[in-house]
């Protein structure tokens, strides 16, 4: 059985890994020269409800990526405004570690390879086409191309290309394969009715910050200072993807997190203004390169799906990560990607695809997001274990816990402990 995964971000890596663990031959097609996509500039794990979700996935048998992340963690169990017990992984080393792991398992990764079209017959995808016309055939396909960019969308719905880690100009823009297959994309909205949302953080070169700030970041993982009155723009929060970081504190404070770079928790910040802050006199952006002006636009390309992650209207296309909904974050991508990989293999074997139970946060969010997408109000929301409305829901439903033993017991009681470790073929 051959599983073709398109898009090598966290969701695609999780899907490819899971399909491989299930026993399939897996080909992973990645547009750029690096895996993890926006994961190369992220780094925040286990904050708030993500702790629960990570432990649920580990109990379900999807521990591989979390083990790698653990090894690459710079800071453990830190708090910052609105967020508790976060881990920060080192974005400068994570990709190579994940890449080595996938290669060691025999995942066939095709880098600098852009998928642009599908060969479809009725509702069945026969093959995908690469930009050079090459045809890649599989039994089942998983699209994890994300919903960010490309340049034209960042222009139409944002402030232009900010030269982010996705590097569309160098490797070519992503193409929505589900839309190519005739299934219309769903677009997320902002409160003001505009489509898309802007990425919520940017990275500063740590070496360009003062010694005092660097020291604090190295020791504590967090550095917080006040935003001068004239630079407080709470309206910017509305544009943000990361509603969990769209808190008042994030408008009034400059919050830096040490992820190898200094992660600045705002969408963009004019360089001249940023340099007025004490210790920021020499500062420069490292992602996006034009982080003084703009950031990438996301949620413009989601496929309608069921709760097994199969695309509605197509027989053999599954989705994960942002492609599958208004999810924010690595943990969310790993959760949806893993389920997509698992069910893709099951579907080819003629087995019934599974839904994760709503008594687990990872099952509930997949179901809840799908319900939310059906109305305009839901399209303005973002779904993350880390904050905003969904974390409240987790707490209200009693899904949030940091008690690892309790999570393991719960998963075991559901008789699904270790399912993602099972070889199906």
């Amino acid at each position, binding site marked *: 059985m051959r599983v073709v995964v398109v898009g090598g971000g966290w969701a695609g890596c999780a899907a490819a890994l899971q399909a491989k663990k299930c026993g399939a031959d897996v080909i992973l097609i990645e547009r750029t020269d690096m895996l993890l996509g926006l994961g190369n500039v992220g780094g925040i794990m286990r904050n708030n409800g993500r702790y629960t979700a990570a432990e649920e996935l580990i109990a379900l048998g999807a521990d591989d990526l979390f083990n790698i992340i653990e090894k690459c963690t710079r800071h453990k169990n830190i708090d910052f405004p609105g967020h508790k017990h976060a881990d920060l992984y080192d974005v400068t080393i994570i990709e190579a570690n994940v890449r080595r792991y996938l290669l060691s398992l025999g995942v066939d990764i095709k880098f600098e390879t*852009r998928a642009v079209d599908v060969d479809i017959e009725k509702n069945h995808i026969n093959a995908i086409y690469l*930009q*050079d016309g090459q045809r890649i055939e599989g039994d089942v396909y998983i699209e994890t191309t994300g919903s960010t960019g490309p340049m*034209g969308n960042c*222009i*139409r719905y944002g402030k232009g290309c900010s030269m982010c880690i996705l590097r569309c100009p160098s490797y070519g823009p992503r193409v929505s394969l589900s*839309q190519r297959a005739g299934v219309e994309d769903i677009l997320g909205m902002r409160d003001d009715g505009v489509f898309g949302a802007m990425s919520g953080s940017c990275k500063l070169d740590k070496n360009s910050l003062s010694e005092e700030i660097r020291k604090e970041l190295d020791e504590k993982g967090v550095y917080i200072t006040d935003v001068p009155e004239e630079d407080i723009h709470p309206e910017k929060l509305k544009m943000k993807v990361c509603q969990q970081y769209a808190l008042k504190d994030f408008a009034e404070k400059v919050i830096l997190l040490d992820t190898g770079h200094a992660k600045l928790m705002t969408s963009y910040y004019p360089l001249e203004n940023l340099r007025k802050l004490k210790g920021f006199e020499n500062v420069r952006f490292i992602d996006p390169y034009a982080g003084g002006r703009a950031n990438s636009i996301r949620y413009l*390309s989601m496929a309608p799906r069921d709760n097994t992650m199969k695309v509605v209207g197509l027989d053999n296309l599954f989705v994960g990560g942002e492609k599958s909904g208004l999810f924010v974050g690595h943990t969310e991508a790993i959760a949806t990607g893993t389920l997509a990989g698992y069910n893709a293999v099951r579907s080819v074997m003629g087995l019934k695809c599974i839904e994760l139970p709503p008594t687990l946060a990872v099952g509930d969010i997949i179901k809840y997001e799908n319900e939310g997408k059906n109305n305009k109000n839901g399209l303005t929301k973002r779904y993350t274990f880390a904050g905003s409305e969904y974390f409240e829901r987790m707490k209200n439903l009693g899904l949030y816990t940091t008690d690892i033993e309790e999570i393991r017991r719960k998963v075991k009681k559901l008789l699904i402990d270790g399912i993602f470790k099972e070889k199906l073929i």
Partner: protein
Amino acid sequence: MYRFVECIDAGSDFCPCHLAEKGECIICSQLQNKVFCDCLYWKGTCIYQELLNNGNKAKKNREYKKFDIVSINKIRDDLHLYEVKLTNYLVRELDNFGAFVFIKRPQHPDYFGTPISIMDVDYEKSTVTMLIKIHGVKTKDIVECSENIMLKGPYWNGIQGQRFLRNLKDTNVLILGRGVAASPGVLATRRLKINGNNIKVMLDKGRSQENACTLYYKKYGADVENINIINYKTKNLTDDFVDKIDDLINKEEVPVILTAGDDDFNRLIINYIYKRNNKIYFASVNNHIMCCGEGVCGSCQIKLSGKYIRSCKQQYNPIEYYLMEDGNR
């Protein structure tokens, strides 16, 4: 079959063009009155951004300029070889697969302009060489020029299926040509040789014993053979050619074949070879009638898979064009 969509001008000095300005861009979905990106062929620039940065206006078109004729060699009454001195910029830009220019006689209106392929370039002399066959009113008019000529360019869509040629390295390429249509193959040979490819050329003798491009192919190190390829009375490939081509495609690996003849020639050859080996990719010279070269006038419009394309700017897969009968395209 995969239908690739490529505009030869995308990302060039002439992009965005009038098509983009009017919401008819060949590549960019945002400039086709859609509100999302669906960029099927990326050449390194975002056309949407380029248009916005250019104040929502097309870039300036190519314009006719007067250039000196360096030499004229009358190979036959109806076959003239022109060497014209151009700017360094134009010579450089015309040193590409499928390069052509529009030329006309000075003082004559633009509708006298006719597309002529570039056969050879010379950086030292800053010249290009073109083989002109007298066909009708425009070419008859041009060959009356002896000192200078009006020329606009560069254009590049003189060869279809260029994507199969561009990245070839250290491999075998077969060029099958006939008549004046074989001339763009010389420039293709030059480009392919730079990448270390072996070029085998079979040229149809036609009315002569030797195709006029033979020496130019040899200059670039191609292995050239003049044979009879087509019997135009019966519209069949000759036995001699069939034996040779069967032998070649059976014995050697030839990933790409460039057919450089008229439409009948290209169609007969591509159909014959594709049925024996469907792994071979084809490039072919572009024989469509062109008047403006900018995708506007519509004279080069053809129908492919039920859709009209402007063949002066848009690339297609020659298999798609020549394998299907006209009615099915």
